[in-house]
């Protein structure tokens, strides 16, 4: 976990799912049917950020299907940059990008932020293009 991360695993373990099951909430938020996944591995193979991930994208889907809430503790869902490569190539037409977003939203909507804004150094705030910040806030802060 990175320095700036303010994620609290204890808080995550207290999350109660609206529909009782993790997979049902993910399906509702993303609009995708995770059970159609064949575990072919195409998404993970095409993902540019797999090097740093603890769970690979296809494993994330599998964890959700098997109702394992540990997936919410993974670094993977925060490493996803919504580049859509997985969604474009998936033979089952599953939009994994939306699934990752749904998983993030499940955490963020319970007021658990991934990024602590105050921890970002001043120098970077001045040099990095604003659009990076806007995207970051959108993705990592509730």
């Amino acid at each position, binding site marked *: 976990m990175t320095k700036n991360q303010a994620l609290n695993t204890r808080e995550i373990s207290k999350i109660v799912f609206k529909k009782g099951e993790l*997979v049902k909430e993910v399906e509702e938020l993303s609009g995708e*049917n995770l*059970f*159609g996944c*064949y*575990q*072919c*591995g*195409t*998404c*993970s*193979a*095409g993902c540019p950020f*797999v090097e740093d991930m603890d769970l*690979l994208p*296809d*494993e994330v889907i*599998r964890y959700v*299907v*098997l109702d394992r809430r540990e997936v919410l503790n993974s670094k993977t869902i925060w490493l996803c940059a919504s580049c859509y*490569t997985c969604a474009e*190539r*998936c*033979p*089952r*037409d599953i939009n994994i990008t939306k699934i990752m977003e749904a998983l993030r939203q499940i955490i963020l909507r319970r007021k658990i932020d991934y990024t602590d804004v105050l921890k970002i150094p001043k120098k970077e705030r001045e040099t990095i293009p604003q659009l990076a910040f806007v995207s970051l806030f959108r993705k990592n802060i509730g």
Partner: protein
Amino acid sequence: MPNQDYNQKIHHDLGIPLQDNYFLDEPEEIIQIKETPVVEGIAEAHVESVEKEKKVVYADTLIIGAGISGMQAALDIADKGYKVVIIDKTSTVGGSMVKLDKTFPTNDCSICTAAPKMVELARHPNIQLITYAEINKLDGEKGNFTAWIWKKSKYVDPDKCTGCGDCAEVCPVEVVNPFDEKISTRKAIYIEFPQAVPIVYTIDVEHCVGCGSCDRVCEAEAISFLEKSEEIEVHIGSIIVATGFEVFEPIELRREYGYGKYENVLTAIQFERLLSSFGPTDGKILRPSDGKKPKRIGWIQCVGSRSEQLGYPYCSRVCCMYATKEASIVKESNPDIDITIYYMDIRAYGKDFQQYYEHAKKLGVKYVRGRPSSVYENKDKSLTIRYKNTLTGEIKEDRVDLLVLSTAIIPSKSNKKLARILGVDVDENGFFKQDSLLTNPVQSTRKGIYLAGCIQGPKDIPDSVSMASGAAAKAVAHVKDRERHVGREFPPERDVSEEKTRIGVFVCHCGKNIAGFLDVEKVTEEAKKLPDVEYAEHVMFACSEDTSRKIRDTIRDKQLNRIVVAACSPRTHGPLFQDTLLEAGLNKYLFEMANIRNHCSWVHSDDWSKATEKAVALVKAAVAKVRLLEPLTEEEFSITPAVLIIGGGVSGMKAALALADMGIRSYLIEKEKQLGGRLRHLYTLFPSDVKAKDVIDPLIEEVNKNKLVDVMTEAELVDIDGFIGNYNGTIRYRGRMRKIKFGTIIVATGFREIDLRGKYQYGINTNILSQTELEEKIKKGILRKPRSVVIINCVGAMDEERPYCCRIGCGVSIKNAKLICERFPDSKVYILYRDMRVFGKEEEEYYADVLKNYHVVVIRYPGDRKPEVILDKNNPKHGSVNVKVYDDILGEELMLPADLVVLTINTEGEVFTEALKNMLKIPADSAGFFLEAHAKIRPLDFATDGIYLCGAAHYPKNLVDSIAQAEGAASRAAIPIMQEHMRGEGQVAEVNEDLCSGCRTCESICTYSAIEIKPRLDDTDRLVATVNTALCKGCGLCAGACPSGAIEQKGFKTKQIEVMLEALLQEM
């Protein structure tokens, strides 16, 4: 074919003046045309530009498409005596099968298995073959159709063209070759492939520049730019559509694999062309980029198949097997090449497929479960494949020198247009729609029009051939009362027994194929010198129409009584020459061929004098043998016009009805009290919600009502004797014996589940059921609501005891998962599988639907680490259990609680396979499934004539495939009956009873069960071998095996072979 060398001038007297400039060098300029010729209908455009010369043909069935399916259907119908018109839009028959190098799982050479059917088709008196033709319009209804065919002109006279190939050598235009799937070029005048039937060159008029070079070099003067295209009106009673498929090219969709961008990425069918001995590389595996042999080859499966986006949703059914085949062929001959196949599931579902797959793994082919995301090219034009190995969890990049994409089988682009013309429907993917997927798969949506082969959906060759026979049966039903013509008429045979031996020798030039490499004149001269040779002549093409006539006239004029033709292989034109003898009034067995082409000029093309010497020797040997040949007779038998069908399940019943539609009587015997077979125990049928009883009850009613079907339930065959056409059987029918006579037999005995005892605590805990038991409970409504259901697939399958796949298990498990979930929406269902083999039409879509709509979780387990059912110690008999399973993909062991466990059990042959084996003398494998004559092109026949096979008795299969096979078997069984008479083989084995010791060697070795050891008629203490000439095929195995030389094969007797050897050895 060997390269033709024009620098060698041949002087021969042909009546054509030869001048220096007649043999042109390679054309100075080659005009290259980049686009692929469209082999589509340009029919409409030409209709107006031609004078209306009406040609009308009256026949019984029209078959559109002359691939393996079309050819099979045509032969089935024509053999019954009906007239067939068969058309193909290319200039030859053969279809896609001839593009393959070898076929799985037997690794037979594809063209070698297809070519005999092609030649038979072209020569069959009841078949009119029209190539380079398409259907333009159709009118009428079942029993009475009129079709208008547009026959495009090839601009080459088929009666004159001999297929020598001179024209193609000098043609200056090169076009991308669609036969080689665009990886090579061909000329504007061409034949598709060397074994094309008819062997007539065709001018691709779209690209011909009209230079006339071909005309100038054609010695047979076959080119005619004045040959017109014409419209032919055909009147038939029924139609079969067998136009096959195309292969998906990932040019617009699935571009991430680099096809079309990177040179070393090919589709699988392009790779087949590389493997093929008559392909662009003569069978050598070479990389397109540098022409060198690759060190590493990779296959990516499911490109464009099983795709809900950017592709097609269905499974293409054959790619897993053809990739395994291509990989194992390459690995066998090149063990140093590194091979990997990247897959999602390996669908090795058919007979011997699983074993073939295991064998490939043993050869060293690597299988990686992981679908690659993308492919990119490296500096040396090798390719890097990026994938996740889902069984190890690693993301990897592999480098290969050559990448083969197993792309989807897609409907032909012209399907929609053809469907419109025929007035039939296509399904949402573009394949032709069947009347009912489950109950009437061969019938299209218009009565009188039937489907055969891949036009209905992807399938392999045995399934196509079975379906084609099924279509033939249905097509014949509409024309069954029409006149039939079986066999040909010949003048009476001359008795040569008192004549002095007068031998005629005909030495063939075969254009330049023989005459270009050895001195045919010298061979002829030497032949003349041999004793008893009254006449010797060399001819340009012995097989041509006019030479056949010449041979016939010469036989008559010179009163010849033994003929030698020195030319090609007897497999090519043997029967043709034999017919010529018959036309001349001579027994056809007084004939011998000397193969001076395949065995001489083709393999010794570099040594003129030695080749000539060898040819002379071969002719001498042939003459020596023919001198000793005797006329042989073929026994004729009449046929009892009835069929015995053993087994009253769906297959048996459908076969009975198909036979009845053709006007043929059948005896349908069933051991149970009622008809129906396994379907009586099932609830629904996948891939749908159709209830089994809605299928079986109407069928039983129809069968019972049908006057041509004699139904006997509680009946068993206890004794049988006789042979094809003349069987006498004893049936124990409800306790009493009944004797019946019949001509042919169909075995439709089905299968049964293997013994489940000892597997997964079955029998110990009451919550562990088989799939059938589950269905019975659901049918009766007595299934208690389960909280958690675990279905275990592949029980008793693909293990040491039974190495085969049960084929239908995956489908059944998914269907039953759906049944449980529909009734109990809160239940959680898990399916534990090894490979998900849902390959049939609509099955993949059904599978995806069930997973998504019912939230079924599928878990893959490895074959060497099977799940375990753990009983509750406190309540082992009735309590819930835990299922321990190793999830192959997550790499974790899971413990699943279950209050219902369902086992998908493997099957084996029915209980009386043994009894039937002995009674009918038919073979079965170790699992009790019967062995067909040839795995690929004769899946419904036994090697023993007169007995046929269908349904699960052959191998477990679902309803659709069973019905297609049943109707196919009916067609096959009807052929001898419709022929009414049968001729046996002439060159049969003959026993010299004085020399026979009754050792039984020949009986055990005979593949056709034609030999029986019986007491000698005049000395009953002695046992001797007796040959049933009706069953003997003249293969010679017995003659070779007999230790005392008592059994000889007529036409290949010891003395006859000895003189050949003497003649050959004299030369040395």
